[in-house]
């Protein structure tokens, strides 16, 4: 099977869908001739033309608004916001419009827009190239919210998102673009070719939206995570020699509550790990849901490991980033609880 990194897998997903469905268009800043600042749309304009792969003005609000209009007129736009940190000028169009068009028109209109956007830190990007704002979108009724953690899922989920009749906010953890990352910046980079999920079929397939995945089965505790942090969590548990069950949430909305709660009910212990700030973060939703459904099975409080509640600081990247040490402290605390 072909080996792909996450960028190639995402490119392949758009390539497959542009070829299969003439209503699919790709749009965004620098995505056309240049092929995107991360090369994710490389070659697509050459192959499908300037009417299918559009270079947009630098106006995120405009990109989202026109994507909605195109979708209302029957297209399936895949809009790139170059960094999630730059999505806020489009927030009104996403929250007040995109998320609610089906609802407020009783289904007469809908806007199946996919918003692709690189998120997360670990690349020395400072506060304007490192944010993880998934909770701001998961909180909005009417948006599906997705974040893959490997190339196979990235392609399958992006195709599923494009085929979905509802809007999807598709977060791409950019630290994972070129390889899995276990949280240690001093180790040499590892390519996706070393990872089973770096094997990606060339053609069409989907990974269902709304389904989490058990990336490692285990008995001692459940780690619930997504994006870059699934890899950091795996390494931290391995470092402690724990038999952890590790769940990659993959889709924040709709959330695979069944898989997560069944696992915690079995293990009785749970640590939630995400890169975003803690306060009112997505971990709070996970923790509340698990507590509601698993209270009588819990043997320890549910702990969260997250970024701190500060803007993302350039000089303190690795003190901010929830690396293996922070995850390990929480794992130990949960295991040591009575």
């Amino acid at each position, binding site marked *: 099977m072909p080996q792909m990194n996450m960028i190639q897998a995402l490119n392949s997903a758009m390539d497959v869908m542009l070829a299969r469905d003439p209503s699919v268009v790709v749009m965004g800043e*620098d995505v056309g001739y240049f092929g995107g600042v991360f090369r994710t749309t490389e070659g697509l304009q050459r192959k499908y033309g300037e009417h299918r792969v559009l270079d947009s*003005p630098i*106006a995120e609000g405009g990109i989202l608004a026109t994507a909605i209009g195109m979708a209302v007129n029957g297209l399936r736009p895949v809009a790139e916001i170059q960094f999630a940190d730059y999505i806020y000028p489009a927030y009104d169009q996403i929250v007040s419009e995109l998320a609610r068009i089906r609802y407020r028109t009783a289904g007469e209109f809908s806007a199946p827009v996919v918003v692709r956007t690189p998120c997360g830190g670990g690349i020395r990007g400072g506060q304007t190239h490192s944010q993880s704002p998934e909770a701001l979108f998961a909180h909005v009724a009417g948006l599906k919210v997705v974040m893959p953690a490997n190339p196979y899922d990235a392609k399958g989920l992006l195709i599923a998102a494009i085929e979905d009749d509802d809007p999807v906010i598709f977060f791409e953890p950019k630290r994972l673009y070129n390889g899995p990352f276990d949280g240690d910046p001093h180790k040499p980079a590892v390519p996706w070719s070393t990872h089973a999920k770096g094997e990606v079929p060339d053609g069409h397939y989907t990974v269902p939206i709304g389904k989490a995945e058990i990336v490692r089965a285990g008995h001692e505790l459940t780690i619930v995570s997504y994006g870059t942090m699934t890899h950091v969590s795996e390494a931290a548990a391995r470092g402690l020699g724990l038999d952890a069950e590790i769940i990659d949430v993959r889709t924040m909305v709709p959330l695979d509550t069944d898989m997560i709660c069944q696992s915690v009910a079995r293990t009785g212990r749970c640590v939630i790990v995400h890169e975003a700030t803690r306060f009112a973060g997505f971990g709070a939703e996970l923790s509340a849901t698990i507590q509601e459904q698993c209270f009588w099975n819990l043997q320890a409080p549910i702990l969260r490991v997250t970024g701190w509640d500060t803007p993302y600081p350039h000089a303190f990247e690795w003190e901010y980033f929830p690396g293996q040490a922070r995850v390990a402290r929480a794992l130990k605390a949960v295991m040591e609880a009575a």
Partner: protein
Amino acid sequence: MVSKSRLHVPKVPARPGDKPDFSYLKLAPAGKTPRPDSNAPAGEIRYLPEGLVRVLDDGHQAVGPWNPHLDAKELQVALRHMLLTRVFDDRMQRIQRSGKISFYMRSMGEEAVSVAMAMALRPSDMLFPSYRNQALYVVRGRPLLDLMCQLLSNTRDMCKGRQLPVMYHWGEGRIFSISGNLATQFPQAVGWAMAAAIKGTDDVAVSWLGDGSSAEADFHHALLFASVYRAPAILCVVNNQWAISTFQGFAGGEYQTFAARGPGFGMPGLRVDGNDCLAVYAATQWAALRARTGHGPTLMEHVTYRAAAHSTSDDPARYRPKDDYAHWPLGDPIERLKNHLIRLGEWSEERQAALSAELEDHVAASWKEAVGYGTLTEPPRLDPHLMFEDVFKEMPAHLARQEAELRAELEQK
């Protein structure tokens, strides 16, 4: 023939491998664009965006109604500021390549915009820059050492390690914080100017953004509020032709000038040769006087060229001809001012070379001192606990708890 709509995609004049082509540029000879009174009603000067304010002609002479008649000493100061900015930029670019700083953005080719504007303004005027206005700091006298310490995120970093390199600020020097998010500073400058008018001072607010950033809604907010309240503001579109890989045609520059948006909002639109230090100076004087005397805002378009990459993360050879800048019809701002001074008999190639060497030494010495305060990777380092300060004025309890968690985490390591 049946006619039907067809999506128009702006044309890019030249791509890699093509011959550079600037035939799309509307030029005017130096001295040709008239200079109205700075208090002229906006409705009577709607022609300005179609012109191009230029002072330096092809023979390196200062000509026409916009000539600000600066003396040789002032011209030499401007030359020094521009050259220092370029020497500093070049050195920081090389240092980024060596890994000592994480990121850098040069202003090569655009030095005249910041230098001449800062020189023509008063120190009390407030500046809201984009990330390519570093020369404002040079003119207003911030030591390079301070800028370098910011680039290094070291123990003397004005941002205490919290910002990406080049995102400077300077309260005392009246230069607002640079944001990585585009165009946000533009309407903020208008708000500052509105406050100046409310308070009854005669200070002016000045802001800059790129042709690409003018696509953001904040650009339009700025023009609307400035014109509605007749705010004492100078709003500058630095049209350097490129927004990373995106040509200015995609920002709406294909059929009309950016300056032409001014009259649409009821304010003058001055289109200026941004590589002509004297033209930029004169246009700024005009707009500042207009603002200070209650005649409201001016939209200024600086026609210039982004001679270098967008940033150290960019490679323009992928999307435009490599030798584009050598063919740019408005030349290089440093070369043009140098040649003007030589023509006046006030400068020489020898003095230029000596100045260049002196500035190289100054930059090198500043760098040597700066790294003594630490680098991103070498001690001394800023205390990581600083990351929890200034989120709020007083640290709330949840942040204090997180700070303690980090302390425990670091002690365990």
